[in-house]
């Protein structure tokens, strides 16, 4: 068995944030390799580096014995490496065959005119080669069901890679099974085995551990950007995988658990039987005053869209949402804010801050109605005072309240967003990945801020960046999987569930 690709001490740094480090992976001919880990553990980043989407910042790779790096997907393709992306990269308004040969029409061209008939014939072969027989190459991709689109994408990547390399290709599949049915997954697995048998290698990311154990010869486990274990198929069992995924850290100090408040009786938010068609079904929970509710689940479990429904970004299909005992209609984020729900969004740069405005303006922007006199006049002095207070209190590093917020570091910008949330005095705060892209020091400050908020009698809903964080912050947890609530935990400060308990319900 020949080694195709080997990485040594491979790593990736964004700014000051180490997202991947010390990765030693070996991909051999004929192997199917599984990568597992929580969201953000670094699996996708590793794949992207191999596939030429991102550049590594540390370490080196060797491909078939020679030093390798790719700065574009095309370059990786030329080296016989192809990636099937999690978010589909097909062009939906073109036909299947046009997609397969997009950018490679040369061999079907005569006097500039492309012979689509001929292309369709070759595309049909390429599809059959990938085991896809029920797709007409002249159909537009947008008319195909999702599963078939996925198969087309695999056929495309396979064709590109095959064309470039007869020496054993590497196919990277990022969460390829998420949208497939059981039957389709089995077809895909058949294809993966076939590809491996032909002397290629397949690398496979999935959140479904049973799949991983079924198909993979070797499993690499990731945690916090590092590689915690390499497990052979015969040694793999669920408990081992779980324990390697969560590692061993006990960090109650870090999450300021000593200041975790005990929930009061008063229910602030009550979600009853809420469903959003095709995303999540029959979710019910109450959030009490002073409580921190963590919603756990992998990407695609429905927690993200649940969060969007609660903050008024998306509508729901059925069920009711009550705020302080009154039924509310959250038709927009503005309506949600009026009813007392404020969200700190995940994508800070795009959604959380108004980059062109100053720190001051960003702090008061959600409170303008309250700060204004008669709905018109807003006292500059008052705004200045409030902003100064927050900067001092949260130790926001800046040159002054007039500084533009996009000049701040991630952690400081996030503190401004928190200041806005607290200043707006809403009773229910939803924190969507509150510490994403924030360095460790600022994280602790943000955790204690969350404690401040609950001490003031607010209810907080958290979608944590890591499972550790979700448990550490929570006074209660609900777990979602495939759009349904699969369980819940009470998390008194001294009696937290372990990560393994929670992860078992997630995956």
């Amino acid at each position, binding site marked *: 068995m020949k080694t195709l690709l080997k990485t040594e001490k491979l790593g990736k740094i964004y700014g000051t944030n180490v997202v991947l480090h010390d990765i030693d992976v070996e991909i051999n001919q004929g192997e199917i390799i599984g990568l597992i880990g929580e969201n953000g553990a670094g699996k996708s980043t590793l794949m992207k580096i191999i596939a030429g989407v991102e550049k590594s910042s540390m370490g080196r790779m060797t491909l078939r014995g020679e030093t390798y790096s790719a700065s574009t997907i095309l370059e990786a393709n030329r080296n016989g490496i192809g990636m099937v992306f999690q978010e589909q990269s097909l062009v939906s*308004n073109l036909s299947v065959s046009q997609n397969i040969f997009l950018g490679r029409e040369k061999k079907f061209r005569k006097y500039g*005119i492309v012979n689509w008939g001929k292309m369709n014939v070759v595309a049909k072969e390429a599809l059959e080669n990938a085991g896809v027989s029920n797709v007409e190459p002249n159909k537009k991709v947008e008319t195909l069901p999702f*599963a078939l689109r996925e198969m087309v994408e695999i056929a495309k990547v396979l064709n590109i890679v095959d064309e470039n390399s007869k020496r054993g290709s590497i196919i990277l599949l990022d969460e390829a099974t998420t*949208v497939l049915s059981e039957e389709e997954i089995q077809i895909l697995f058949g294809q993966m085995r076939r590809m491996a048998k032909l002397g290629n290698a397949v690398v496979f990311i999935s959140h479904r551990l049973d799949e991983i154990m079924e198909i993979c010869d070797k499993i690499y486990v990731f945690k916090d950007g590092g590689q915690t274990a390499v497990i052979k198929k015969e040694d793999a069992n669920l408990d081992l995988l779980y324990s390697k995924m969560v590692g061993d850290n006990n960090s109650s100090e870090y999450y300021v658990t000593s200041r975790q408040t005990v929930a009061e009786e008063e229910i602030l938010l009550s979600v009853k039987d809420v469903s959003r*068609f*095709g995303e999540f079904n029959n979710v019910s929970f109450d959030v009490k005053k002073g409580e921190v509710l963590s919603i756990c689940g992998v990407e695609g479990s429905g927690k993200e869209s649940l969060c969007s429904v609660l903050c008024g970004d998306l509508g729901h299909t059925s069920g009711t949402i009550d705020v302080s005992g009154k039924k509310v209609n959250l038709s927009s984020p503005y309506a949600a804010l009026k009813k007392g729900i404020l969200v700190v969004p995940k994508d800070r740069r795009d959604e959380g801050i108004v980059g062109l405005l100053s720190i001051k303006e960003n702090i008061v922007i959600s409170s303008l109605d309250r700060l204004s006199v008669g709905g018109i006049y807003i006292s500059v002095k008052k705004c200045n005072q409030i902003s100064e207070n927050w900067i001092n209190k949260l130790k926001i590093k800046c040159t002054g309240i007039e500084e533009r917020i996009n000049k701040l570091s991630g952690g400081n910008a996030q503190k401004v967003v928190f200041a806005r949330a607290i200043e707006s005095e809403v009773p229910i705060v939803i924190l969507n990945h509150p510490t994403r892209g924030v360095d460790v020091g600022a994280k602790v400050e943000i955790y204690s801020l969350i404690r401040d908020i609950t001490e003031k009698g607010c209810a907080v809903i958290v979608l944590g960046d890591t499972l550790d964080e979700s448990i550490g912050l929570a006074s209660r947890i609900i777990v979602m999987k495939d*759009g349904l609530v699969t369980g819940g935990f009470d998390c008194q400060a001294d009696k937290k569930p372990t990560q393994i308990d929670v992860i078992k319900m997630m995956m």
Partner: protein
Amino acid sequence: MKKNEIEYMKNHSVGAQFKYKIASDVKKEKIRIYAPLILLVCITIVASVTIDNFFSPKNIVNLFYQMSIPLVLATGVTFVLLIGSIDLSLEGVMGFSGALVALLVANTMNSVHLGWLGIVLTVILGTGAGVITGYLHVKLRIASFIISYAMGSIITGIGVLTYKGTPANVTWSVFDAIASESVFGVPLLTWISLSIFGLGCLILNYTAFGKAVYAIGNNEAAARSTGINVNKTKIMVFALCAFTASCAGILACVRLKIGQVSIGVNQLFPVITSVVLGGASLAGGKGGMLQTFIGVLMFTELNNILIIVGVDPNYRQLIQGIIIIVAVTLTITRSRKTITQ
């Protein structure tokens, strides 16, 4: 709709619901594609029944004659909208080309007479303006509507300077001939316009470039990753749009036999509206030549009807605006994506 969903939700998994949702989106999309055609057919039937002579050969020929210049312009605009950009320099390029060509063939202003070469030269210069627009858009990363507006202004200015106030009258007999000749009872101008449109069809549907245009409008990142030269394709799209605008300018000059930049005035927005009426999306990726044809025909037909019915010209604009809102409401898809480039 929502009732169906609630019913379906009762005994299907979330995954199955998701697939159902995608399938129904696909179905909706299929219906949407035919909406402009259905609307066109309805308008035509209503007009044919209620208005005498509307569906007569004479009026149909007249209709195609009226739409000849908009159709040429719309051919280029389709490409620009498909990549999700917009080209506001079209009126300028059209006016400039009309003014220039009048000076390069036999005319009342100067003694230059390059004949057919004058036409070729005009088209080359007009297309060149598009290349510059596209190049600046791509290289300086300036939004297309700003850069094309600026280029339109510049090129209009150059057009005015070529004749310094008094436009030239064309005296070349070929222009007369083209304007008055008919083949099979259809004016030559209409044939020329249809040929340029046909060329557009060929490029969009049968070349790799055409598919690259679709790919960029739908998923630019994916297009880039497959090795399509996105910048070059965009520049070519602006060149193509300027080419059609230039042709339209020459055709307008043929029709009026006078070369002044004002022939381009008030062409831009009717044409963009027509293309959108046909089902193109301002966000890119949606539309096509056939759709554009339907859109232009519909727009021209509506105007034609207003004129035949004898609507007071003072009201025509107002009614036209209302009709556009109604027609667009019935035909376009709504998405959160808006003009971004």
